Each structure stands twice: as C-alpha cells, then as structure tokens.
C-alpha cells in the first residue's frame, strides 16, 4: 500500500521543481527583455513612468506611433494573450485578431527569435504587476492609417523566419549574430533602408543616413575608415558596457539608452559575442 506521506512528499517536490522552472523562465525572460531593448520603446519618458506600461510616442515620417502597454493587465495590456498570440506577434507581425502590426514594432528583426526565448519573455512580462493604462491611438498619415497598409508593406519587405545557426562558425559568432540581427535589432537603426523602408541586408550595418526623424546613424561595419574597423573586440565590448568610444568620446542620443537599458545589462560574454559578430560582417563604405 502506498503511504500517504510519500505522496505528500512527491507532490511537494513536484511543486518546488515547477516553481523553480517557472522562476528560471522569469529571470531568463527578464534578461532577454533587456537584450531585446523592449524597455526603451515601451516605457514613457519621465522618472515616474512605469516600465513597460507603454504610451511612449515614437515619431516617424509616417506619423506618431504610441507603444502599447505590455504589462499583464487583461484589458489595456496583454493579460489575455495565449502563448500562440505572443509567438505570432513576433514571428509574423500579426495581432491576436489577425491584423497586421506596423514595422514600428521591429518584428522584422524579432522574427528570428526562438520559441524558448519568446516564451521566457512572456513569462517575465506576465510576472509583472498589471498596470491599467490605455495607449493613445497612433496618429498616422491617411495612406497608412489602416492595418491593411501594414499588410501591403509586409508583402514586399518582410521575411519571416527563425535564426538558423551556422555550423562552420563559432558558438560566440552564432550567439552574436542572433543578438545583433534579431533580439538586439541593431540593424533597425544601423542598416540603410531602401525607398520602401525595407532593410537592405546586403549593406548590413553600413549606417543609415536617412532615419525617419531626418537624422543618421553611424556605420558600425568593420570598415577601417568609415566604420569601426579600428576598434578591437574588447573596445567594442567596453563600448557596449559603458558607452565610451576608444578615443575617449562618449556616445549620445538614442544610443545612450541602448547602452543603459540593454547592452550594459548583458553578460560580458554576450557583449564579446556581439563584438565577434560585428568584426565579421563585410566592411561597408559610407554613402
């Protein structure tokens, strides 16, 4: 006969094991949310703004987007989302009703992120306190004001697909490629776009002189004159940690926030992986 004591013990062990698996997903998810730079876009400016509760205006040449609330509030946030809803948003750029997201949500890069990592991020987001906060409606130019326009854009400019590691590259390179191209979405700012706003992958990280706000971003390919070819791997790692360039200058504008909220929060190993990958892409001349 089975002793009831054993049952209780087994159940307790099961609960503990379950709890700790959950906890690891949550803490891994937190790390990945840093790596993904989610906080920048999904948090309003100002010290009293609640992280990830959305409402931040993102100005573009098509109008102003307001980032949604991604805390688990069931009505104004994503509290009712299933795992499938979450995966499809990142992999396919589609919301739970089947409508298209605008690429101001960089699913164009996130489409490469693995299922395991996305579900860990979801677990982390769902562990946060729900915040009741409705993001304002986007204020967009008429010709893109319906989500059908986003769908039309995607047909031409969006290629869904998970990251596939390259067998003849090192583990560090593959990790770096995953972080730069997908989770860290560095190319969204640093790679030029064609006239339809699609990222030109054959000019990877060559700098974008035509950012939506009329500004530009520097070339971070390893070109020795136009890019960062003179930076050593550990110079890049140091930059991603504290934002300082090898000549003693400090970075600024939006890259300050990328360093503060994202790359400085990564392990040194991950920053070195990013550096390894950056050193490996083709050197691109400036425009």
């Amino acid at each position, binding site marked *: 006969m089975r002793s009831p004591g054993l049952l209780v013990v087994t159940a307790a062990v099961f609960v503990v094991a379950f709890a700790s698996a959950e906890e690891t997903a949550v803490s891994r998810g937190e790390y990945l949310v840093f790596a993904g730079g989610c906080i920048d876009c999904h948090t309003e400016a100002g010290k009293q703004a609640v992280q990830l509760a959305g409402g931040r205006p993102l100005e573009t040449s098509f109008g102003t987007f307001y980032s949604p609330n991604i805390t688990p509030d069931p009505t104004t946030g994503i509290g009712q989302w299933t795992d499938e809803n979450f995966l499809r948003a990142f992999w396919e750029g589609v919301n739970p009703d089947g409508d298209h997201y605008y690429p101001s949500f960089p699913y164009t890069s996130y489409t490469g992120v693995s299922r395991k990592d996305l579900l860990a991020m979801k677990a982390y987001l769902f562990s946060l306190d729900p915040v009741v906060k409705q993001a304002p409606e986007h204020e967009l130019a008429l010709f893109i004001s319906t989500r059908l326009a986003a769908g039309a854009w995607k047909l031409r400019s969006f290629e869904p697909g998970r990251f596939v590691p390259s067998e003849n590259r090192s583990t560090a390179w593959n990790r770096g490629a995953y972080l730069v191209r997908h989770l860290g979405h560095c190319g969204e700012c640093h790679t030029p776009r064609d006239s339809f706003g699609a990222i030109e992958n054959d000019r990877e990280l060559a700098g974008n002189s035509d950012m939506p706000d009329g500004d530009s971003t520097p070339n971070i390919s390893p070109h020795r004159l136009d890019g960062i070819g003179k930076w050593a791997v550990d110079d890049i790692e*140091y930059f991603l*940690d504290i934002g300082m360039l090898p000549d003693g200058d400090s970075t600024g504008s939006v890259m300050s926030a990328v360093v503060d909220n994202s790359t400085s929060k990564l392990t040194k190993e991950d920053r070195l992986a990013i550096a390894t990958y950056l050193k490996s892409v083709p050197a691109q001349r400036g425009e």
Partner: protein
Amino acid sequence: MRQTIKRLTLLITLAISLAAVAEPTPEDAAKYRQSIMKALSGHNGAISMMVRGKAGDPDNLGNHVQALVNLKGEIESLFEQSSDLEDDRALPAIWENPEAFADAIENFQAAVEALSEVANGGEMQAIDAAHRELGKACKGCHEDFRLKKQD
C-alpha cells in the same frame, strides 16, 4: 621716446584685453567648445587605456585625472552663447531646458570629483568604477543635449 613706448605698450595691452572681452563669433565659440570637449575625451581615453591595463604607465594616471579636474569648471561658460547648429552639435535643448542642462553639468562635475578622490588611493578597481560613472555622466549629457553623430 620712452614716453611713446610706454604709451604704445598701454595701447597694445588695451587692445589685447579688449579682444579677450569681445564676444566670439558663434563659429569661434563652437570651435572653442569642441576643443575643450576633445581635451576631455583625450584625458578620458588615456585613463580608460590605463584602467583596462592596455597601455600607459599608471603612474601618470593622476595627471590625467588632474587635467579633468582643471577643465571641469569651464564647462558652464562653454554654453553661454547659443549656437545655430550649422556646424556644431549643441542642441537647442541646452538653452530651452536650462535646469536639466545644469543638472547634467553638476553630475559631470561630481563624477570628476569622485574620480579624483579615488585616483590618489591608487586602487585600480575603485578607479575603474569611478571612471565608469564619469562615462555615464558624459553619456547622459550627450543623450539629451548633443546632436547624433552625422556621417
């Protein structure tokens, strides 16, 4: 003869001091500002090579920290004159948002003080930590008040 020389010297001195008082053109003010910024980054870069153990004799570290201490008081005066953003990267926010800008200067000056306090101790880990804080202060001001790098 003597009298003439004396008078001439006086005139020249007067002319020089007048030149120093005269308001510089916006271009010259920007060039001057950028020179000071480059001086900051020169010393800052040298310190970073030392704390990372890559180059430079750590015995010289104090000199570079002292240089930052000497330069830190001048920052305010660099921004007295507003710029026109033709050939410089000083954003209008500096003059539109003077309180936040004053905070950024204060952060920077405090970070230099803190670095100079630990620099004398020679404890590399503490110096590294204080130097990182200084980096944050530079970055913090550049985030809100310096135009993006233009290729």
